[in-house]
């Protein structure tokens, strides 16, 4: 995974609370493989009118915020469904960082697993940043090492789980880390087999490897 250290890019204001993962990627667009990409369906029902024409009032359809790599939103961003496609859609659209006062836990974990930074900022700071971005289109600099956002000569500190910060800074993939613990995993499984045999190999009578 590509490490995230520092980013300077346009930031789009999305002054909505609870932008849930159903809005980020509506359920009807989730049949694709990862390779086919999800960016064209990001926030589909906000970006497009019911007739399929782009909603020209929506922030991501305005020329000023074309190419934005940072999105600033209100609280509870990414709530709801565990669908990682919500993160695929953001990443494929070009976003590398989301700033909000709070995030859905599963969304945030999915984001980090795809190199997308979920940056927690206090509500009043988010409101100030939203105001700034609405008044003046300005690039922001996201510094993950220092946990700071710089915008128009103002610094906004942000928070992220320290484990996730290190993971993003290094571009680590959990599978690579886990591989080094293969022996411990086997030992744990063996010990549990004796301690809690009832959790092992559940039998479902008649349920075979051929789908019923």
């Amino acid at each position, binding site marked *: 995974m590509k490490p995230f250290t520092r980013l300077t890019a346009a930031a789009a204001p999305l002054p909505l609370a609870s932008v849930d993962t159903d809005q980020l990627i509506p359920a009807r667009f*989730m049949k694709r493989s990862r390779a086919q990409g999800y960016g064209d369906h990001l926030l589909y029902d906000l970006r497009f009118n019911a007739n399929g024409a782009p909603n020209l009032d929506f922030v991501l359809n305005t020329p000023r915020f074309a190419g934005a790599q940072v999105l600033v939103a209100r609280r509870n961003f990414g*709530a709801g469904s*565990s669908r990682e496609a919500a993160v695929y859609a953001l990443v494929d659209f070009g976003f590398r960082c989301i700033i909000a006062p709070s995030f859905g836990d*599963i969304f945030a974990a999915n984001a980090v697993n795809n190199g997308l930074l979920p940056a927690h900022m206090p509500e009043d700071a988010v409101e100030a940043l939203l105001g700034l971005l609405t008044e003046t289109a300005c690039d922001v600099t996201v510094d993950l090492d220092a946990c700071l956002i710089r915008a128009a000569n103002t610094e906004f500190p942000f928070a992220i789980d320290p484990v996730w910060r290190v993971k993003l800074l290094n571009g680590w993939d959990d599978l690579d880390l886990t591989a080094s613990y293969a022996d*411990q995993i086997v030992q744990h499984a063996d010990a549990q087999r004796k301690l809690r045999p009832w959790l092992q190999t*559940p039998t479902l009578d008649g349920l075979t490897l051929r789908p*019923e």
Partner: protein
Amino acid sequence: MAQQHAAKRLFDKVWAAHIVVAREDGADLLYVDRHLVHEGGFHGFNALRAKKARISRPDLTFGVVDHYAPTRTHDLTAVDPAIAGMIHQHEANCAEFGVRCIGLTSARQGIVHVVGPEQGLTLPGALIVCGDSHTSTHGALGAIAFGIGASEVAHVMITQTLWQKRPRAMRVTFDGQLAPGVGAKDMALTMIAAIGADGGQGFAIEYSGSAVRDLSVEGRLTLCNMSIESGARCGIVAPDQRTIDYLRGRPAAPQGDMFDHAAMEWLGLASDSDAEYDHEVTINGDQIAPIVTWGISPEDAVPVTATVPLPSATDAARAAHVREAAEYMGLTPGMKISDIRVDQVFIGSCTNSRIEDLRAAAAILLGRRAVVPGMVSPGSALVRVQAEQEGLDRIFIDAGLDWVASGCSMCVGMNGDLVPAGRRCASTTNRNFKGRQGPGARTHLMSPAMVAAAAVTGHITDVRALMKGRQS
């Protein structure tokens, strides 16, 4: 420090038994006892192929068809080929990787969070994951159970483990006793309205108190199911005699002496009486009224006797949300909730589709006619059989509702069961998000009994008025 008390809480006892590696930075590598995989698991299977990997523990991995399951027919040649393709793909993926799959036409097919407990795959003290946020449901039996994303699904498939930071501990205590006409769904929505849709973020919620102990296992499943709607990744209830009685004899549960041995351990999992929590919430169960959502987040919930809120004069962000929600929902702030007319109803989903949910709705519908159309989708094929044995299907059909097959159905609309744009649905589901039941659809969440009441009157209705002389 909460850490000093860690071993004394139910959640921490179960967590500790699953730690493979405790890293110094606070991340724990956890061993997974049950990995449940629905049609959305194709990203994980594709990752296996790309890495030329196999499933680490196919014996602990179970496939279920639910998200795309058609509810009007099981003839896949008769449905949208893209939807049929998702089901074929899942069954083929499971077969290729040696995973037992409860497929579309299985006698035990159903919604994964109904099937798991029903089959006894869900056990106290287990760690259960699934690529679905409502995996929190399984905590009702004293398991740690939470939803994961596709990257985590692939990680579990390949290693049977997952890196997690231990969530903080919240206890939600429901004291007192629920009034007639009030149930687990009302408890959950009352809590979410109180703490907010992000109030549980970063926490594991333990539910306790007399009103939780008095709930059936099915009610506890509903309560834990909705934990994610408060932002908490999981909810958990201490196993008690009801849990043991529920599990005894289920197909995948231990049998005979092994069961009794396991049950001894399960009954010992309860938190110690002096356990401490990072956050405590207490709700008086006596005071809970039937509750419905009016807006576009599960926190937008008020008692049926209330009104649609007015935008706050002091909180600009909240005021903006209330205006956005009222506009999307086509409601006027200040109007009475009971004046909201509905176009259709839906009874189903992993939240409220178990036999007790169907009984509660049928008790209101018995001998009455629905004045709006609606669907009833039982949580599993086995629930469907039981409901038919009890004659509940006749009550729904005689009331004018459609009695259909099991699946996620109109909760998420992936199978094509959708609410049309601009239409308003009284629904027993878990999410009233914009577009959740279809683009432009308007969802009001409530209990099965409340949905039945709305079906009979055509508007949101206090079910207590329709219960006189009937069993609740």
